[in-house]
């Protein structure tokens, strides 16, 4: 049995344990008394507040029961917010309108366009109204594939769909003017195959601005999820084993040197966008997470050290399963980490970033996308996501323009600040009969997928048999068929069509002049470092050949080498990825 089978079994075992405890609560008077005492304590600890219209409200809503079985069912099956198995919420208080204890501001605004200075300007625009500093970065295609902007055949792609980064100097321009060492700063980067190189550039740029001592203070997330790249998103440069090795090098280095950094964001978003059902998204994402935990443990890393540095990223669409997806994932992760990996409390918590579904947005009558995103935001926050990004309504046809990016961020403010849904009371919805029914079904379906992959030999073996890709493609195909057969209503596309032409919206596109400027900058950098670069690359090559920690060396290499020079050097050592259909 692979690790995945053991994890599925551990969830079943935990569910049996909960059922047994519920039964015991109903028969064992001493246990019942104990539970009642705990319950009374939990209730007594709840503070009270009032809505703006004067309705008194508890800060935490708990099931209205004194029956010991029901108490056990809630405490063990769902858990108080911030307590095992974390189905209710990862932390005790989230989103509340309190001066203290409200915790992290959840809104993230993804931006990336043109050259570094263009994205920098967009960051400044988006952060005008934010209390804390949130810089969520999208990169252009060449950067995502580890290519320099002067690579043959790229013109038209540079600065398109994200920001073009070739060198540490671009990285300096990207976050210029922002104090990245602030306690409430958080930088996130949607960057995968070349993540070690880009993070090394980020560190090098930060050192130049804030001094070498700043590294432990840097806070943020880099996606770096290579398993989902191979399964769905297709931005892969090196063979799978080498990609995972470079990733683990980076994670280990970050765990040791950057205690506030999340070096991997285990992502279902791209899996869902590529076509997966919500259940598949949850199953593949969680199983990828457990695979990383297994790989790191095999390398001798301590689960209680790296566990808290793993984070997750899910898509939230309009399918009903999204009502509970985050809750189910937190619970499976917590039980699996505790019972199979022996992780402590901090390492059991699945920290979740959510993004509303890009695939659910369409070009026809695109203003409807505002409503779609609003509904998805509601679902995401009902799952107590730790952070969230809302898509712009104009995304089906362009990199978000300023106007729609702002509307998307205001959507979150309207939900969290203007509406009273989340700001007074924790757990407004948990325990609803519909949610519980869904949770049971979704969890069971996820475990079924785990077991199927287990029979194939686990996640990586299944991947080699292209299991995940086949399932995702199958589901994507089924979705398209449902849309075209009118079995899945999409307003404005196959239902209530108004046949209005798509309005002319200003498109954010990068001009050829800017693209040439990026190439000129890169060439100037290469010229400036032409003498040091070969030696730096040789050192990197030697470390990679000797299977040393490549990331520790990259931190130096990026001072004098460009992204493309570095990926080419590493590909010379480990070869190139051979794609799967």
């Amino acid at each position, binding site marked *: 049995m692979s690790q995945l089978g053991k994890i599925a079994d551990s969830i079943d075992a935990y569910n049996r344990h909960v059922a047994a405890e519920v039964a015991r609560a109903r028969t064992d008077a001493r246990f019942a008394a104990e539970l009642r005492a705990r319950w009374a304590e939990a209730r007594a600890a709840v503070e009270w507040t009032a809505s703006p219209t004067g309705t008194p409200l508890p800060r935490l809503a708990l099931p209205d029961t004194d029956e010991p079985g029901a108490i056990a069912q809630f405490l063990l099956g769902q858990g108080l917010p911030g307590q095992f198995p974390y189905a209710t919420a990862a932390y005790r208080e989230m989103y509340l309108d309190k001066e203290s204890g409200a915790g992290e501001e959840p809104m993230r605004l993804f931006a990336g366009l043109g050259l570094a200075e263009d994205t920098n300007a967009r960051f400044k625009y988006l952060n005008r109204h934010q209390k804390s500093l949130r810089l969520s970065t999208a990169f252009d*295609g060449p950067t995502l594939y580890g290519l320099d902007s002067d690579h043959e055949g790229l013109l038209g792609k540079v600065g398109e769909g994200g920001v073009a980064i070739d060198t540490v100097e671009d990285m300096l321009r990207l976050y210029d003017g922002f104090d990245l060492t602030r306690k409430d700063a958080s930088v996130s980067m949607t960057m995968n195959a070349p993540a070690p190189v880009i993070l090394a550039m980020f560190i090098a740029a930060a050192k130049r601005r804030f001094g070498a001592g700043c590294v432990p203070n840097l806070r943020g997330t880099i996606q770096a999820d290579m398993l989902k790249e191979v399964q769905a998103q297709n931005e892969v440069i090196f063979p799978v084993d080498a990609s995972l090795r470079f990733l683990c090098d980076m994670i280990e280095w970050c765990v040791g040197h950057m205690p506030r950094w999340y070096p991997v964001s285990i992502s279902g978003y791209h899996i869902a966008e590529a076509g997966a059902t919500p259940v598949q998204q949850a199953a593949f994402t969680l199983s990828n997470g457990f695979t990383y935990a297994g790989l790191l443990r095999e390398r001798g890393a301590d689960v209680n050290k790296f566990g808290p540095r793993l984070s997750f990223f899910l898509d939230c669409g309009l399918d009903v399963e999204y009502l509970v997806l985050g809750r189910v994932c937190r619970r499976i992760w917590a039980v699996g980490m505790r019972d199979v990996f022996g992780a402590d409390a901090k390492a059991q918590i699945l920290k979740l970033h959510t993004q509303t579904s890009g695939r659910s947005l369409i070009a026809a009558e695109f203003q409807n996308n505002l409503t779609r995103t609003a509904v998805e935001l509601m679902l995401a926050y009902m799952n107590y996501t730790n952070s969230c990004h809302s898509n712009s309504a104009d995304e089906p046809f362009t990199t978000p323009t300023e106007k729609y990016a702002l509307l998307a961020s205001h959507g979150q403010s309207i939900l969290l600040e203007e509406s009273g849904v989340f700001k007074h009371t924790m757990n407004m919805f948990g325990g609803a009969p519909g949610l519980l029914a869904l949770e049971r079904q979704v969890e069971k379906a996820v475990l079924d997928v785990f077991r199927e992959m287990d029979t194939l030999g686990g996640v990586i073996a299944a991947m080699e048999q292209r299991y995940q890709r086949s399932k995702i493609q199958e589901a994507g195909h089924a979705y398209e068929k449902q849309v*075209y057969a009118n079995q899945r209503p999409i307003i404005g*596309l196959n239902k209530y069509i108004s046949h209005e032409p798509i309005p002319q919206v200003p498109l954010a596109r990068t001009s050829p002049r800017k693209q040439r400027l990026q190439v000129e900058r890169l060439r100037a950098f290469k010229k400036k470092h032409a003498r040091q670069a070969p030696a730096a690359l040789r050192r990197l090559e030697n470390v990679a050949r000797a299977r040393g920690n490549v990331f520790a060396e990259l931190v130096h290499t990026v001072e004098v080498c460009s992204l493309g020079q570095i990926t080419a050097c590493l590909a010379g050592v480990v070869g190139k990825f*051979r794609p799967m259909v």
Partner: protein
Amino acid sequence: MASPRPAAPLRLLTAVPICDGHDSAVTTINLELARHGLEVIYLGYHQAASAIVRAAIQEDAHAVGLSSYNGGHLVFFKEVVDQLRARGSGDIPVFGGGGGTITPADERVMKRQGTDKIYFAGTPLDAMMAEIKARYARDPKPNPKFTGDRALARAISLAEAAGRRPGARNPRPAARPRRPGRGFVIGVGGPGGAGKSTLIDELTSRFLRARPAGRIALLANDPSHPASGGAILGDRVSAIYAQDDRVFFRSLATRGSLTGLSAAAPAAIDILRDSGEFDLILVESVGVGQESDPFNVFHGTRLVDAVLFVLPPHYGGRIQLQKIALLNGADFVALNKCDHPMAHTAKAEIQARLDQNHRGQVLHATTAARHFDPGVDALFAALARQAGLEPAPGGEPACQLRVAD
């Protein structure tokens, strides 16, 4: 919708542009095209314009379909059109789609620049398929203006079309003087899932390094779907070393031939050999069964100069091995996927099976999925010796490639 059926199925090349990994739309379209009886040669995502043009020419595609979701389409589509024209293949139309990322205003610009058609989000799939069929269907005809790879590719298309009419003579390209010692043909067979395509790609990389000026041709046979007659020819996706002008790669759908090769394969082999262009020609059969003889080793006219038989470790045990006829006829046998736990036992069992033949067949243990595999180095060296390919000046000796990791 009844439309007159062309003599041969439409062959479309589909791909996703460079720096774009969005392949969910294109995979759906590929499935639909195949379901509607078309042959789809899928090149994959993150493909440079030059790679798309090379493939379109070598495959003699009826049209090129591009699925672009990452922007830059105004530049990219034009680049593909321009390069096709520059290489004498401006007759191959380029169409595509990009959901909402390609706007109607973009479409007007792209059409002016030579793109044939853009499909917008919401186009019903059936309507799209019917239109593609009507728009691009045409019988391949000889075209004296074609040169180089396109001329070879068209000759193979004509052979494919002729294959549908029993008795029709295989057309040949104008005879060229045959250079001695060139055009050695190796048939590569083995059960489905043995890793033949990956092994061929790794052999290709060895060839390119050993013969810095040489050319290699690959003929990849893949089954047609028995019901629709369509096919997804996806071998190019994993053939990373075929992205080189020194490699001629042609996909052939079997179109109902049950021999393990397309009915046009014999003619295609002749065309490639007679062209004198290639030092080495590798012909990959579809996955073969116990009695298969795709290369006519046991009866008929032998189609190839040598046969490489590839087995995975999970062939089903000793008794199953006894039944595989081609193990008797193969000149080279490779046990691939040797990183598998069953490989050790498999090696001993297969060697014992080969010893019964008393032909001195050597078993090569390979792990093609791993780059720089020494087993593949040794296999290539043996094939190269048999093919009379001495390491060319400047080429790396095949068996001394640098081994990493």
